[in-house]
Every structure is written in C-alpha cells, then in structure tokens.
C-alpha cells in the first residue's frame, strides 16, 4: 500500500528534477504570497500553479481533485464569513486555502520523500525529528493496513461496538509496540547506529 503522492513523486519532469531545497523555498514564498493575495492576484497565483502543473506532467484533473480535500473545512469557515455578509472575504478565504493546498500538493507530488527529508536536514531541523518522520512514513501504511483489516473484520461481525473499538485501539497499540521493538532489534543487527545516512 503506497500513497498516491508517492507514485507521482517518482516520475520525471523539469519540476521533479529541481532541487528539493529550491522547491521548498519556492513553496514557502508562494504560500506567503497567497496568504497576502487579494482576489485579482489569486488569479495570477492560479495561472502560475496551472503552468507548474503542466510542466510537472502530472494528471492535472486528479491533482486538482486531490487539492479539493481542503474545501469542506474551508467552506465551513468561509460560510461563517459569508453569513456575516462579507461575500468577498469568504471567496478570498476559499480561494487562498484551495490554492495553498494545491501548491503544497504540487510540491509533495514532485518531490520524493527522501529528497525533502534531506532538504529539511540541510536546514538544521533536529535530526531526531527527521528520523521520527522517516519512521512514521515507513510504517504508517503498514499499520494503517492492519487497522483496515481489523475494521473490515469488525464490519463482517456486524460493526464495532464502542468498547470493542476501544479494545481494537489497544490491540493496535500493542502490536505497534511489538513491531517497534523487533524493528529496532533488526536494525541494530544490521548495523544501525542511530542515524540514517
């Protein structure tokens, strides 16, 4: 089980080939720009992102659809502004959050995970934090699959009752704990000395 973004980030295009540090810097600048953009500037931001998407040779509709994951929550907050009578503000908020999500997604979809953790390391992010990040990324799909199996089994038995779901969390925790211990032992046996190189 692999994440969609992970498949995308392994393709090749001028955007994929760009240094991760440059892309991360550009992403932060772009996001800061978007957070200050007025409605008409948002159109320019959108044009820029659209161009970047085309350059990245990624499936544009799929990318735009994924970025829309941010919309439900944004829409709720924007609706509050809307109902208080500030339509322009609501539209700006919605536009800003969607374009920001698109920009972040475009970064993640053109930069393989090892490349952006390397970029973070070169920016002096505490190495312990980066190691945890790498471990979480490595194991989240594995353990999520376990959780899905448990949920499916529970559905087959007629669904989780509250107490059973709590027990399932306990089981998941205990299994994760054991997995962490055996992973650690295996890594030491293979020469792990506290850091990925």
């Amino acid at each position: 089980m692999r994440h969609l973004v992970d498949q995308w980030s392994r393709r090749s295009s001028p955007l994929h080939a760009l240094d991760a540090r440059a892309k991360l810097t550009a992403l932060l600048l772009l996001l800061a720009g978007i957070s200050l953009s007025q409605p008409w500037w948002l159109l320019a931001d959108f044009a820029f992102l659209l161009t970047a998407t085309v350059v990245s040779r990624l499936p544009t509709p799929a990318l735009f659809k994924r970025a829309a994951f941010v919309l439900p929550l944004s829409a709720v907050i924007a609706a509050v502004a809307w109902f208080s009578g500030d339509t322009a503000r609501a539209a700006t908020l919605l536009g800003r959050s969607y374009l920001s999500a698109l920009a972040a997604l475009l970064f993640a979809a053109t930069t393989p995970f090892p490349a952006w953790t390397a970029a973070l390391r070169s920016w002096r992010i505490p190495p312990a934090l980066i190691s945890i990040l790498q471990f979480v990324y490595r194991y989240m799909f594995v353990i999520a699959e376990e959780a899905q199996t448990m949920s499916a089994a529970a559905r087959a038995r007629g669904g989780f009752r509250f107490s059973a779901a709590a027990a399932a969390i306990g089981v998941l925790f205990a299994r994760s704990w054991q997995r962490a211990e055996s992973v650690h032992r295996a890594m030491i046996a293979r020469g792990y000395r506290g850091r990925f190189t």
Partner: protein
Amino acid sequence: MHIPDGFLTPPVWLTLDAISASAIGWIAHRADRMGPLESPTTSRLPMLGVMGAFVFAAQMINFPVGLGASGHLLGGSLLAIVLGPAVAALVMTVVLVLQALLFQDGGILTLGANVFNMALAGVAAGYLPTLLWGRSTIPIFLGGALSVLTSGALVLSQLNLSGTAIAGRPLSIALALFALTAVLEGAITVGAVRAIERLSPQSFHARSPIPFAARAAFASAALALAICGAWISSTSPDALQQFAASVGLEAHPAWPYAPLAGYELGDLSSTGLAGLAFVFAICAVGRKKH
C-alpha cells in the same frame, strides 16, 4: 481542527511558527539529553516513529456514537498519558507535518499554529489531569476532553485574531461540536488506556516526580492562555464592531445577531480561555499540596 493555509494573517502564523519551532526544538534537544534519542542500543526513535504510524492508523478506527454517526480518536492525550508529554509532543508534531504535506489536512505556513494547538497545548492539557491525580478513569477522561477543548478554543481565538470573527450562532455550533468531540475523545481515551493497560502494560512511561522545567512549562502555558483570553476580550469587540461597520451590518436588520455580536464573541471565548487558565492554575496549586 487543522487550520488550512490562507485563514491566518501573517502576524498570527509567523508568531505561532516561531513559538512552535522553538518549543519543539527545545523538547527534541531535552529528550536527547535525558537518554540519547539516537544512541544505537537504547534509541527510542524507532518506537517514536512506529507510535506516530499508530496514531494515523488509530484515527481510522470508527467509534459508533449513535444515529449512525461515528467519530474517531485524535490521539494527543492518549499518547501523552501512555508515553509521556515530551514524546507525545514530538510524535504529534511529526503526524501533523505528514498530514499537512501528504493529506492536505492543515496548512504548511499554519503548521506552527496546528502544532501549538494540538501537539503542545493539546498534549499538555491532555496530560495534566493524570499527572496530578493518577491514571484513574476521571482524570483520563478529563485529559481527553481538555485536550480537545484547549485546541478548539485556541483555533477559534486564532481565527478571531486573523479577522475571521466567529460569533453568534456559528460560535454556538462550533462550541457544541467541540463539546461533543471532547466527550467522545475522553471516552475513547479511557477505553484505549484501559485496553493498553491490559495488553501492553510495559509501554507506560515511568511517571517521575514532576521536574521543575515541566512545572514551569505548565505555569507558562496557563499564563499564556490567560493573556490570550484577556487580549482577545480586549481587542475583538472593537475588531468586530469595525468589521460590522465595514460591511454595514448595523443597517442590516436581516442579520439577527448583530446587536449581540460585539459582546458575545469577546465574552464567550474569553470566558472559555479564562476557564481553561483557571483549570491550569488549580492544577498547579493542587499539585503543590501533594
């Protein structure tokens, strides 16, 4: 409750990014000093990483809450109770980073705000009751509930500071949702902690006598909340009135809450924050008597 990019103004996200970055940097540094995180044999890094993966997975398990609806664990308080607050803060930070980058759940520039709300304040609030009163049912429940309420109050106040005034009926709805989520999180946390006690009792961190640094951190958290509450109650009525005036709300009879807007917001969110600060203060005092 993950704030997306675009909803906070630059002063707000810049401040919170700076606070969160230094706090997490300090925690990582301190965790390293207490027992080297990266020593080859005693390293806790694989454990921390797998626990982060566990949080992702645990959030996929649905809890029935009646009427066909379901909710899920958020996890900050559970991790704090089982693994300790420092570990929980680091793990939750990493979870938030991945949620922002891979799942479009929360923004990049607002990462500092989300880390502050959930990984720092939420974890601290989730840990406090069991720190003080031990791992019995009521403190665990309170921990889960308080972590949600603290994060929720902080999200609302940050949105308010950024000019997205949430007042009147939307505020009531938001508060009702937070209250429901808080009760659910408390109940799930109790069930999960009990299950972990049965299945993996060796996982619980040793609760050492509270070090000075922790007490100082809690005291400053309480202070920060109090200041935050006072600040909002003093600034937002004006901001709201200005906001109302700028969109012509006074001359807009269709808006049912306008006459109350200036008061309700300031009162409710500052009362909420003051209440939280009060809880923190009580906890600090209660601890000293132990």
